[in-house]
């Protein structure tokens, strides 16, 4: 007979928590916007002539499949003091796969402290490495099915290569907060649940100059922005 008061207390607590969450949500803002690319974008650079290759003679077949539209390869992210910093919750599962001698995804953003699982899905060796200041690593030659975890502790751009297939590249943007996204194919993007405040919003692309703007986010409102990469 003591169950009823306990159940009532639990219900009250849940209701209170939901109310708090709703209030917190209401106090957060949203950013919507678009990214545009002006002018012609240079094609991805190839490395030192496709006809030289380290090893078997047929490995110089150039893989020309586009990994996606150029706008989808951009990253939009926020910088500012009020933002929640990287924590366990924001460190989502991340992967970097090698399929058909291509890195997938080609571009991704993570928060610092995230561990990326690097997996070879091809029948041939891949030897994944980076010499970027934000993360120098070399996992050596790895056969099909082998996964190696690599943790990224420092913010910055990490360019990843395969030592065997010189045309393979990927970019990892390591950020200190979880407020980032990739635009859709048409360049539109949305950032939800942004704490009120004034921030710098930036658009990054591997072969274009970074674009940035100041933006103010009000509680419960939506701010809009247009970013141009050129």
């Amino acid at each position: 007979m003591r169950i009823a008061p306990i159940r009532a207390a639990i219900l009250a607590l849940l209701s209170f928590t939901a109310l708090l969450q709703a209030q917190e949500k209401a106090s957060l803002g949203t950013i919507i916007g678009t990214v545009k690319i002006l002018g012609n974008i240079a094609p991805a650079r190839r490395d030192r002539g496709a006809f030289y290759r380290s090893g078997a003679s047929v490995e110089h077949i150039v893989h020309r499949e586009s990994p996606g539209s150029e706008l989808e390869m951009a990253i939009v992210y926020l910088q500012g003091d009020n933002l929640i910093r990287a924590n366990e919750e924001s460190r989502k599962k991340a992967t970097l796969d090698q399929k058909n001698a291509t890195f997938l995804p080609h571009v991704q953003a993570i928060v610092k402290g995230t561990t990326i699982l690097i997996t070879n899905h091809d029948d041939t060796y891949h030897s994944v490495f980076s010499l970027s200041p934000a993360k120098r690593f070399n996992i050596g030659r790895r056969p099909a099915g082998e996964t190696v975890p690599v943790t990224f502790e420092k913010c910055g751009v990490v360019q990843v290569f395969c030592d065997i297939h010189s045309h393979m590249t990927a970019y990892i943007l390591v950020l200190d907060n979880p407020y980032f996204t990739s635009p859709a194919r048409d360049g539109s993007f949305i950032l939800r649940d942004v704490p009120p405040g004034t921030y710098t919003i930036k658009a990054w692309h591997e072969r274009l100059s970074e674009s940035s703007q100041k933006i103010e986010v009000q509680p419960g409102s939506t701010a809009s922005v247009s970013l141009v990469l050129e």
Partner: protein
Amino acid sequence: MSNTKHCALVALIVVGIASGFFSSVRAQMQWSGIYSFEATVGGSDSKSSLNALPNGDPQLAVHQFQLFLESDIAEHIAVHAKIGNNAAESFDLKTLEFQLAYVDFSNIAGSALNLSIGKILTPFGTFARRQLPHDNPLISEPLYLTYPVSVSPSYGYLPGSTPGSASSYGSKLMTMWTGGYTAGIEAYGSLLREALSYDIALTNAPISSTVVDWNSNKELAVQGRIGIKPIVWFDGGFSFSYGSYMDAASATAYIPANRIDDYKQTTLGADARIGYLYYELNAEYVYNTFDVPSYQLVSNAYSPYSATTILPPSEDRTLPSGELIVDGKAETPFLTGFYLAGRVDILHFGRGSYKHPSLLYPSFPWENNVERYAGAAGYSVTTDVRVKAEYNWMTIAGNSNLHLQVFALQLSVTF
């Protein structure tokens, strides 16, 4: 075989017309390049023709400056070219040349057939394709690409002179001429999920020829490699090259024009590569023969060819040699970008069979055996910037007093 040469020319014209059709789509060209600077110092007997050092004195030189041009002109058609300095013949930048220039047709009709047509890189062996500073773990290159042997494109066997150095009677050939460039039609591809690969080219000349862009010879040559990759950590292959190596335009009057193409270079190779985690081991064996004419002295003067007659074809001789190259590279997982490498390179010359004292024919063996050992360390500062240091020493049999050591530093940059 002369018909073959005409057929090949017709094929080139047909493909040229086809590529002209596709090139109506304006292509976007992309330039990239590689640059390497070397500081070297060597033993007192070091020189360019022996161990790729201009002389024993300290040298500062741009070893390689190469520009790559690539342009996709249709989905499966691309143009490739390379402009570079000829580091094997001179270390200066006064002369730049098109070392590669070809059109590549990939996945023809959705098949495993790909074609490269034009001035291409030889399919023979593996080293020609890993000679760039970022692919070669050492600074020096194997002897078959750098060591001149006593065979001339003008005379055949070229006796006399210091080992490895040029003779006053003309230049000497390397087993594979500098850079491994050749001109022709190359078919390549892979089958059975890359377990088997082929790369076969019909070319103007075999791998030692100095005149690959065009020549006056009647016959074509063939070069190729069949590769196998049974398991992920091993791949290997068998290579071949066969053709007339003498240059019809510069051959001496002693050799009748109709016999120039009788003198063949035949080269067979076997290669293997083992790779595991941070370690890689490459081994290559190259067996080579040059067919040479024999000359008979008319007077007692040894100055070769000034008072001689060429003997009939039955007196032609074959000069054999064999070279084993083993190089290894070990990276360090704890210091990303750093590695250690080494190479053992042993070039031995076989014995001839003819001993007629009146013939200007090689003593036995026809060259002195050469061995070179090298150790190196490298560090990649960034993906585009690498520094290397190498120490190598070379011995030439019967010349124990030669001082042939080299210490070299190299900075290479891709851009």
